[in-house]
Structures are given as C-alpha cells and as structure tokens.
C-alpha cells in the first residue's frame, strides 16, 4: 500500500482523489501528489531502503504507487561518479557526475516512465502514450513492451535517427508530427480529451510520472552517505526534473533520512536556442515567455515549459543560478566530459556540463561546494550532433609504413608521456 493521501492543485489548493487527473478543473493549475509524511516517517529507514532492489523501487515508500511487480526494466540506482579531472579543469573542488546515461533505455526518463506505467496499469489503462522529444519516446515504447501494453508515441518529425529507431524497434505505434515539440504536446493535450482510455504519461498521468524524478535526489543523497550536496546542476526542458530534484532532498529531511537539514542550491541549465527559463532568471521577472526552439539539444527543446514557473521558483528560493549555452558550447561540453571522465553524454548532458563550466567561471558555483551535475542521457542517442566534430585521428593503408607516416609524431608524444 502506498502513502498517497490525494492530489492537490499547486495553484489554488483544491483537493482531488488519486486518479488519472493532472489539471485542476477550476484554474488549470497542475495537480501534485500529497503524502502522509508522518506515516512514511514511521516506517522508512536507511536500512529498509538499502535492503531494497538496486533500482528506483528501493524508494517505493516515497513514490506515488506501490506494486509487488512494478513495470520495471531496472531504472535508477545509476552511478554517482567522483569527477576530479573535470573539477580541476573547471577550478572546482568536490564534483560528482550523476551518470543517468546508465539507465535501461539510456536516459533518466526510465525513472518517470516506470512510475507512470505502474500507476497507469493499476488504474486500469491498457494503452501507454506520450508526447516526446525522444528520450521519453524510447522509454515509453520499451516499458509498454515490457508490460504488455500497447503504446502510441508522438514525436516531432525531425528527431535524431537513433531516437526514432530506439522507439520504433519495440513495435508500438510511432507517429512523427510535422511540427515542433510544442505542437506535438498541444496535440497530445487535445487527444487526451478525446481518448480518455489512453495513459499519456506526461499528460493525464503526469502527476505521478513527475514524481519519479525525485529518485535522482534520493540516490545522490544515499550515494553520498545520506548527505545532501551543496549545489546541483540540472538541465531544464519542461522544468519538471529540476523541481522534483529540489523536492526530493526536502522529502528526505521531512521523513528523517538525513541528519542535517539540506540546503541545496539548485541551478538550471538551458540551451541558448531554447532558454525561456534562463531568460526570465536573467531578467528578474516571473513571466516566462514561450519561444520557438532552435538548438541541437532537442531533448530540451521545449519552448513552452509546463513547469517553468516552478523551476524558476526552486532556483531562486534555493539561491541557485541559471544560464544558457550556445550549441558550440554544448559540443565542447560533451567533449570535455568524455575526455576528462570517460562519460559520453547526449546533447542535453553537453548543456549541463557547459552550463556547469559557465557558472563555475562566473563564481556562481564555488570551489568550496560539493557539486553534483545531472547527466541525463546517453551520447549514442544524439551521435549525429558530433558528425564532423570528432572522427578518426587518421585513415591509413594497412601497412606499418602508412601507420608510421600518419602517426609518427603523435606516437613520440604518447611515448614520452608514458615514460614521464
């Protein structure tokens, strides 16, 4: 049994039962799951969590659905990697990378989809659907296959090839829409009214789906020995992940899993070609003006971010910062992380690393802070963004002579590095 007490509108406070509802009937504000934290605190312990599965489901007490056999491909409990070489390049002290490229379909979306479809199945849904910039498409198609559900996935027509293949292979219905993600999203919001029997994970099941992102915070704290970090850097698409990461640290404190009250500065990362939240932060306003995205970071190309307000609020109230980076900086960020730490991130990860670098250079992230950067998707998904950027050092005939001609000078350098 779960510890959900109901749903509540974040805007006007009206209460709702824990069903497939995502929007307040009165003001259209987003609904949020409410929990009985006292009851959770009375059962949850570090030992109970540590004895659980090595997945997001070890935190089931803090999730909006309990199920003896959840819809699960093993999402979560991804590595938290100490990144000393990257830290020293950026002039930072203690830096960690939350490597969510290690999830079953290669992105953090497995966390939210596992929660959403487990709840959807309990609510009686047979069809899983979503609007996606790619990563969610991969994850919904895979988890629906795992659960024996039909899937209907809608994506913008111009996604990276790998993300299309990684969705289509699972055999569900995949619809490419001639428009931007925001067009796809509006279409899905309208479809939800016409197809109430479909569980659109990020529309009518969004209230539950979004809670899955809290597990990023739970894991980071557990992996740091049940301590919260001082500063986290989170990419912003819809703003949901950042908002839920901030909530996750607070909840751990609320239910007694941390010794010290966390004071985590939360900073946001956006691509310059789609930076409505970073722009509002820079201008000091509450008004998030929608934009028409134009960036290689397609998984973050949401011009009208549903949780933009809340992300902005989480950043400001925590003393964090927010910045945007150019596509060239995104590619540099991907290269920097790969070269220094051996982690290959998708373009959204490049946004995070480039923003981390920028905020460190500005002094907004300090060397005396324990910093965690969220790297949320695998580089193979967006490999085409690196076409012409990286490639073979040399292309040669299969002879020693050709090898020596092409690489002679470089070999001397490598040799001298080894002997020094």
């Amino acid at each position, binding site marked *: 049994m779960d510890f959900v007490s109901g749903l509540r509108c974040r805007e006007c406070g009206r209460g709702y039962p824990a069903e497939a509802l995502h929007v307040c009937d009165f003001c259209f504000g987003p609904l949020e799951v409410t929990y009985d934290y006292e009851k959770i605190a009375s059962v949850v312990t570090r030992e109970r969590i540590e004895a659980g599965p090595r997945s997001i489901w070890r935190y089931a007490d803090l999730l909006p659905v309990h199920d003896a056999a959840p819809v699960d491909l093993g999402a979560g409990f991804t590595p938290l990697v100490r990144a000393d070489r990257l830290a020293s390049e950026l002039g930072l002290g203690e830096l960690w990378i939350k490597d969510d490229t290690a999830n079953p379909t290669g992105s953090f979306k497995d966390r939210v989809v596992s929660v959403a479809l487990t709840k959807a199945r309990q609510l009686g849904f047979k069809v899983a659907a979503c609007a996606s910039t790619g990563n969610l498409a991969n994850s919904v198609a895979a988890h629906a296959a795992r659960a024996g559900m039909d899937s209907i996935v809608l994506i913008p027509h111009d996604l990276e090839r790998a993300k299309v293949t990684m969705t289509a292979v699972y055999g569900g219905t995949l619809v490419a829409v001639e428009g931007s993600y925001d067009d796809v999203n509006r279409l899905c919001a309208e479809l939800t009214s*016409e197809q109430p029997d479909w569980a*659109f994970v990020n529309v009518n099941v*969004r209230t539950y789906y979004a809670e899955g992102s809290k597990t990023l915070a739970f894991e980071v704290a557990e992996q740091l020995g049940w301590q919260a970090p001082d500063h986290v850097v989170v990419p912003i698409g819809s703003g949901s992940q950042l908002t839920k990461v901030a909530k996750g640290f607070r909840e751990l404190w609320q239910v007694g899993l941390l010794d010290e009250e966390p004071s985590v500065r939360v900073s946001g990362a956006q691509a310059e070609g789609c930076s409505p939240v970073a722009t509002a932060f820079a201008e000091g306003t509450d008004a998030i003006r929608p934009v028409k995205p134009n960036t290689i970071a397609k998984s973050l190309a949401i011009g009208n971010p549903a949780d933009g307000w809340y992300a902005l609020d989480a950043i400001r109230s925590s003393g964090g910062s927010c910045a945007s980076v150019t596509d060239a900086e995104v590619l540099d960020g991907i290269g920097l992380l790969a070269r220094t730490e051996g982690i290959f991130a998708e373009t959204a990860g490049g946004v995070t690393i480039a923003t981390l670098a920028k905020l460190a250079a500005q002094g907004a992230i300090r060397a005396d802070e324990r910093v965690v950067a969220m790297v949320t998707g695998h580089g193979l998904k967006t490999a085409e963004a690196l076409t012409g950027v990286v490639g073979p050092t040399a292309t040669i005939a299969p002879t020693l002579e050709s090898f020596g001609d092409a690489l002679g000078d470089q070999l001397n350098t490598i040799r001298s590095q080894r002997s020094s």
Partner: protein
Amino acid sequence: MTTVRIPAQLRTLTAGAGELSIDGSTVGEVLVALDGAHAGFAERLFDESGGLRRFVNVFVDEEDVRFLDGLATPLTPGQTISIVPAVAGG
C-alpha cells in the same frame, strides 16, 4: 463564426460538448461570448486582471496566442480556437 474546442476539464460547463460555434472578431470577444453562452468559463480562463490564467493556453489554428496578439488577436471566419491546459509535456 469561430469554432472553439473545449478540453475535457471544462465540458461540465457545456453539457459535454467538445466543440462550439461562437461569434466574435477577436479571441477575447469569443471567450467572453463563450462565458455568456455557458456561464463559468470567464472565472476559469481569466485571472483578476482580466488576462489569461498562467496555466491556460489558447491557440488559434495551432498557433499559441502569445505569439500573436494575445486576447486582441483578430479572427477571420472559419478559424478554430483551442483551449488547452498548459500542464503537459516534458
């Protein structure tokens, strides 16, 4: 006449109808006329200052009115207005 598409959350106001035909020369006029025909729309769509609530998105033929002239966006006959909750996606 402008066709107005009503989301499921507001169909309690329209006796279940998902689409209505309403007269008006701007988006704002149509939405006010909608409230005249089916009381209850105005308090749900508009905030205290008369603007659209921040989680209400309105589209004219697939374009967000925030990229047009907002509530002052002029309409030509045959266009479709969609009212869509903003809370989706990502």
